């Protein structure tokens, strides 16, 4: 009986989160267009609905009804699989994010947790699933039988490998301090002790940089560098297949922002132990995600792209040593604290 209720609960949660993510994606594109337009002395979307708010819907309809062109020389199975894979992986990563404090309910174990999976190795899960994202891109690049796409795919795999390491190491500091890999426990720890960004400033900065690289966003958007590769790995995709890549990119952005908020910025909790009802918890998390998205858009509007080799240099020669340094400093700090050396 309990298990059936839990199953229904999980399915409902999944449906709500996926729905919210897709809507979030749609409005992320609107938000990006609007913000970039304001930064470029333009107005941005203003025709479809008030302030162009219906534009994402119009875009969706357009993409649904576009012809799905299948180029003659593609590797069909992989070509179809690649966008699906990108999208699936992007959505999966969101499952571990705690969205609000648990509330009492009269069924199940008595608690309704606003989190699809309170996984005890959630951090590892997050790293593992985001690593999978590169497969969608590499396979799309390879299967498209297009040179630009191929170069895009190659760049993407190299970029992912270099930045994955630094990203993983930047998160280890958090796990060492909290002593847990579970995101709900990390949030609970921050509720009690304050935001981790104060203790892990270097880790936070490294995470932010690598997150931009992981999501293939400017100035690290090598795989789809418009100026050289036109559209890179998704050059041969049209209609909804193209839209899936597009969605995957934006949902990945939302996810890395949510992870940054959860790990470093107190998650759904307000600072200084201020307690609010669960729906305001949700609003707090949304605000933190929106702030992260704004930074993404801001960077895209203002910064030119690095070159591929410079990007690799930066990843291996700067970020990775810094991440290791952060690890060592954190370990020393914890040792000093536990042995009372800090007074």
């Amino acid at each position, binding site marked *: 009986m309990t298990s059936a209720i839990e199953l229904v609960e999980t399915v409902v949660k999944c449906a709500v989160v996926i729905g919210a993510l897709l809507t979030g994606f749609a409005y992320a594109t609107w938000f990006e267009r609007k913000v970039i337009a304001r930064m470029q*002395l*333009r107005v941005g979307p203003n025709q479809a609905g008030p302030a162009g708010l219906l534009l994402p819907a119009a875009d969706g309809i357009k993409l649904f009804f576009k012809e799905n062109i299948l180029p003659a020389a593609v590797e069909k199975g992989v070509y179809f699989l690649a966008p699906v894979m990108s999208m699936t992986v992007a959505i999966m990563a969101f499952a571990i994010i705690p969205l609000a404090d648990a509330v009492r309910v009269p069924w199940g174990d008595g608690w309704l947790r606003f989190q699809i999976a309170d996984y005890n190795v959630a951090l590892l899960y997050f790293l593992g699933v985001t690593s999978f994202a590169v497969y969608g891109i590499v396979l799309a690049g390879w299967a498209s039988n297009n040179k630009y796409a191929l170069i895009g795919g190659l760049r993407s795999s190299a970029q992912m490998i270099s930045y994955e390491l630094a990203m993983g190491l930047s998160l280890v500091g958090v796990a060492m301090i909290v002593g847990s890999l579970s995101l709900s426990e990390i949030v609970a720890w921050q509720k009690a002790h304050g935001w981790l960004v104060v203790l892990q400033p270097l880790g936070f900065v490294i995470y932010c940089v690598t997150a931009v690289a992981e999501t293939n966003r400017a100035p690290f958007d090598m795989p789809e*560098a*418009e*100026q050289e590769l036109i559209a890179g790995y998704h050059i041969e995709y049209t209609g909804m297949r193209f839209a899936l890549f597009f969605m995957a990119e934006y949902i990945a952005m939302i996810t890395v922002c949510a992870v940054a908020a959860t790990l470093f910025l107190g998650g759904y909790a307000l600072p200084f132990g201020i307690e609010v009802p669960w729906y305001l918890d949700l609003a707090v998390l949304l605000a933190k995600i929106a702030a992260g998205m704004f930074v993404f858009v801001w960077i895209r*509007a*203002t910064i*030119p792209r*690095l*070159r591929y080799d410079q990007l690799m240099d930066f990843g291996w020669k700067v970020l990775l040593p810094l991440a290791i340094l952060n690890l060592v400093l954190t370990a020393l700090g914890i040792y000093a604290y536990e042995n009372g050396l800090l007074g």
Partner: protein
Amino acid sequence: MTMTMDVRPAALAPADVAARAQARFPEAVTVDAHGALVVDRAALIDVATALRDDFGLAYLNNLTCVDRPDRFDVVYHACSMAGGAPVAIKVAADKANPVVPSAVSVWAGANFQEREVYDMFGVRFAGHPNLRRILMWDGFAGYPLRKDWKEAYFEGAQKPFNSRWPDGAFFFGEEKLTEWKSNAKYPRGYTATGVEKARPDNTVMVLDAEDLKHAPDIGSERLIVNMGPQHPSTHGVFQMQLVLDGETVVDLQPVMGYMHRNHEKIGERNLWLANMPYTDRLDYIAQIGNEWGYALTVEKMMGIEVPDRAEHIRIILAELNRIQSHFWGVTFLLNDIGAFFTPMMYAIEEREIILDLLEMTTGSRLMCNYMRFGGVAYDLPEAFLPLANTLVYDRLPRAIDEMDSFLTGSEIVDTRMRGVGVLPAEQAIGYSASGPVLRGSGVPYDVRKAEPYGIYDRFDWDVVSYPEGDIYARYMVRLGEMRESLKIVQQALKQLPGGPIMGGKKAWQIRVPEGEAYGRVENPRGELGYYCVSDGKANPYRYHVRSPCFINLTALGEMTKGHKVADTVAILGSIDIVLGEVDR
């Protein structure tokens, strides 16, 4: 860094060069009525080498051809980097078998120009490294700038060729649909896949599968990428054939002509004055400069004086034009290194206001049709001066400083631009590079100082030059030139005199006396030259445009080799081409 250029006259005046060359090569060199050296074919390379090394003519301005009734005249214009007018050199070629030795070994900048002459006139250049058509396609039959060329449906037969293929077996479906049917013919032996094979004379970029195999021990292959003609970063319908080894560029061949409309042929059919609006279509970001170059050349041939007010108006509009063109060039370069249109939007804001000024004066924002032989078409409107003064004293200096402060110091701009696409000074001169590309290589050569036209010699301004020769230097040259242009406009606005705006005799039909002239102006993208020949008739006998964008591209391959794919785009952006002028 700004440098003041020496305004000393050329080491030798053109007449002195002619006299000395004749003394040194009495058998091979004569001087014709227009002061040009007429050089014997066989002695061309010796004479050219001597001109370059001993008489200081290090820079080949222009190379073209004139189809005379009894011969082809291949015409070279070369000048000294110390300044002064270029010296014309002519070599005659037989009508039946036109072959001239290639000057590429003397002036590397002759490369594309000789290909263009071959393409348009069928004059072959012995010893040219890659003598192929450059503007027309490989399979085109005929040489359109020859006087006996007949254009199908217009001058010639309705159907010049029965079929595109010699045996008539193969046709393209689209031929049935167009009214031109098969108005083109491939030469015998040409196959659609022919470019994939090296030709016996090794003239084609080698796309052979065997040659592409590389480093057999790890089994890696080279990759050919055709960037363009449909590509967001080629600034139009321009193509770059890249051979890549991973991300590194091994070879690059520019491919152009997708927008070729034979400007020169049309120019030779037009009346002299009817060409004026047509020059706007060359470099459509720098209309006024194009018109000025053409007006200057024809004024030279007609011997007209331009009144003072008209000279001031010309200089004001041309320099404003340069500012808006550089706004465009600088910020599109930023786009090419990956900025998402933000710098461009801010620059376009300023450019629009300058175009407002052009519009209120000439009636058009882009296709101005404003200059006339002997002056300008309309006087400045009343609203011009207040707006222009606010712009050049207040708004534009601020906009330029703002761009400078936001872009120049940026870390990413720095790492992407410094040390990339380096063109050393000697190579820049050899390749006939001009404009910001030449000055970015540390050669402070500017036509406005070297051979002052208009009234540039009356104003106080400097030639901007940076010695590094990389993208960053070209970018800094453009920024500096915008400031120098502001200085010129400020002075010109202050001194603007009254009086007439047209000189010379009023005439319905312009008669240009028999003769020839090479006129050049410093356009935002480099030295824009016009070579016109008149036979006293109503239209030009020969009308040639020395396009700075086209010739600057000669050095592109050299600049790009060894860099990454992303740099290719940035280097092309730093040359700042406009396809209307490259393809003509």
